[in-house]
């Protein structure tokens, strides 16, 4: 264990040395390889060998399952922005007359980290042991075994990717996270959920009503949403495990735009019970703890800072919607956005430094980010209308909805606007939110 730590420390300093050349920023922590600052990241090379059978030979079906798992891991790691998965396979090794399982071969190809897995399939169970190697030092960094049903092979691959990211970078892994959104497939607007990459789509509500603004609780076990199923737009909470709905706030008028406090104890939301759209703090029982805004303008769309001490929100108190920040007790209000005449939908990055929001454009809206100091305004989208940005828990990605294809679909992209891709196909999908990954 001690040697392991020493090795990690040495490697860590090496990586920090190189990454600091590119970024000029060093976050020194001994138990991780690289700490990625947002911006100026330098992805880390990794090679992923095709998994080999634990015993005997693979049948064609087993071979297919193995290749699928490896491909999911490659896609995950490439998406993470922290890794660059080298495009080498057994063919390249054969041409170069190198042994696929010999770390020396990887070393000669210039790969610094290699994942080698062994896999066995019995009945409907997959059994994988994977070992992460430090190629330069010929050492194991990490080994772990996984068992699951074949039907959960995507879950298995995402769990392996999660472990690789966490062990090598210390970043919160996002590959097992979920995205919930509203979809209008019949006349009703129902809440759906899928994996971060769009697979495993499931319908969560089925009440033939209007259901809006889903938000994951910080423990990911529940989702709040606003529903008209009893007539008034009330706030409901869905227990994902029990698949049970409970009404938590049914003040007369709107009970909308709820946002969880990071500790999961309270929610900020918009109520119109006192005659105007104001932001209130309620507990999980729906009891009002405090009214946070008092202004004859519209105050809506609250969003907690990651430390829970501040709330970003939208207000049209200056004549048109703009983003403001206040302390969690409602004091110390300041305006954040001045760039365009219409800004809404704030989402505070889990890293704390940026707020994503939408700004009005010729074709509707674009997703933007701005530092909480009000500097570094960045427009991340340009095609169609783009709405409802929400961050991944690592702060490197955003999910949003866009009508650029002619239909409203859910998209994901990197924090800087690169690699925008849809994860839904058909069905008028909007208002996504990204689970926290806890």
């Amino acid at each position: 264990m001690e040697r392991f730590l020493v090795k990690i420390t040495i490697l860590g300093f090496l990586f920090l040395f190189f990454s600091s050349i590119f970024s000029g920023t060093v976050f020194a922590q001994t138990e991780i390889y690289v700490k990625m600052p947002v911006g100026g990241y330098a992805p880390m090379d990794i090679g992923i060998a095709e998994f080999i059978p634990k015993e005997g030979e693979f049948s064609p079906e087993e071979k297919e399952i193995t290749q699928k798992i490896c491909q999911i891991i490659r896609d995950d790691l490439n998406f993470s922005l922290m890794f660059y998965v080298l495009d080498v396979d057994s063919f390249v090794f054969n041409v170069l007359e190198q042994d696929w399982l010999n770390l020396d071969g990887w070393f000669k190809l210039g790969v610094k980290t290699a994942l080698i897995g062994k896999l066995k399939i019995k009945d409907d169970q997959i059994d994988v042991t994977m070992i992460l190697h430090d190629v330069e030092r010929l050492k194991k960094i990490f080994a772990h075994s996984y068992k699951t049903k074949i039907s959960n092979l995507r879950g298995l691959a995402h769990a392996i990717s999660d472990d690789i990211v966490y062990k090598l970078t210390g970043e919160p892994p996002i590959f097992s996270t979920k995205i919930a959104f509203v979809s209008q497939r019949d006349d009703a607007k129902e809440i759906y959920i899928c994996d971060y990459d769009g697979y495993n789509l499931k319908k969560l509500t089925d009440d033939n009503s209007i259901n809006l603004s889903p938000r994951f609780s910080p423990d990911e076990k529940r989702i709040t949403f606003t529903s008209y199923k009893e007539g008034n737009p009330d706030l409901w909470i869905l227990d994902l495990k029990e698949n049970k709905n409970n009404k938590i706030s049914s003040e007369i008028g709107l009970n909308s735009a709820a946002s969880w406090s990071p500790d999961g104890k309270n929610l900020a939301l918009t109520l119109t019970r006192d005659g105007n759209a104001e932001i209130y703090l309620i507990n999980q029982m729906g009891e009002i703890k405090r009214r946070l805004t008092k202004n004859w303008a519209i105050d809506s769309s609250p969003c907690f800072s990651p430390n829970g001490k501040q709330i970003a929100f939208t207000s049209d108190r200056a004549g048109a919607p703009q983003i403001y920040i206040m302390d969690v007790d409602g004091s110390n209000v300041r305006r954040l956005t001045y760039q365009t005449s219409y800004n809404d939908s704030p989402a505070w990055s889990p890293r704390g430094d940026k707020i994503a929001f939408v700004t009005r454009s010729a074709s509707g809206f674009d997703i933007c980010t701005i530092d909480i100091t009000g500097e570094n305004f960045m427009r991340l989208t340009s095609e169609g209308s783009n709405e409802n940005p929400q961050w991944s828990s690592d702060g490197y990605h955003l999910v949003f909805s866009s009508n650029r294809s002619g239909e409203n679909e859910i998209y994901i992209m990197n924090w800087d606007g690169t690699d925008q891709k849809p994860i839904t196909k058909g069905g008028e999908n909007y208002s996504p939110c990204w689970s926290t990954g806890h």
Partner: protein
Amino acid sequence: MKKVLIFSLSLLLIFVFSGCAGKKKEGIEPKVELPKIEEEMEKPEVGEEGIPPEYTEEEVVRGIEELGQEMELKNIHFDFDKYFLRPEAKEILQRNARTLKANPSIKIRIEGHCDERGTVEYNLALGEKRARSAQNYLINLGIDPGRISIISYGKERPVDLDHNEDAWAKNRRDEFIIISR
């Protein structure tokens, strides 16, 4: 009164005519030929052909008056991202208020709606502001607040699904729904 009678009679004749046209035509057809209607409009008395026997004259007139008043709870429309009442919206609200005063048992719900531009959450709040603008105006005209409830549907229930200025203008509206008589 005569004018109303003549108007209602001709309306009824048209209803009967079109209703019969939809069904199998058996012998009634000659009675409702168009030239005849015109003839009867000239006459001061009410002809018997057009009125189904189960309704009295008074009932028909009252029915049509009520129909007319119901139609008069007209929608009002708003500017983009605004909830103030335009002059023509105030006129419509004054007419709606007269209808409500003439029918004191009616209770209504004002539904505030928005166009698709803007976020779900902001539009919910904007729709509520729009409904409340009309509610306050009606209350100021002397309508009992207990007769008017409000709800916002934000941009969730557009009447026109197109994505252009015409559709947006139609969708930025208050609707007045009679919830009890």
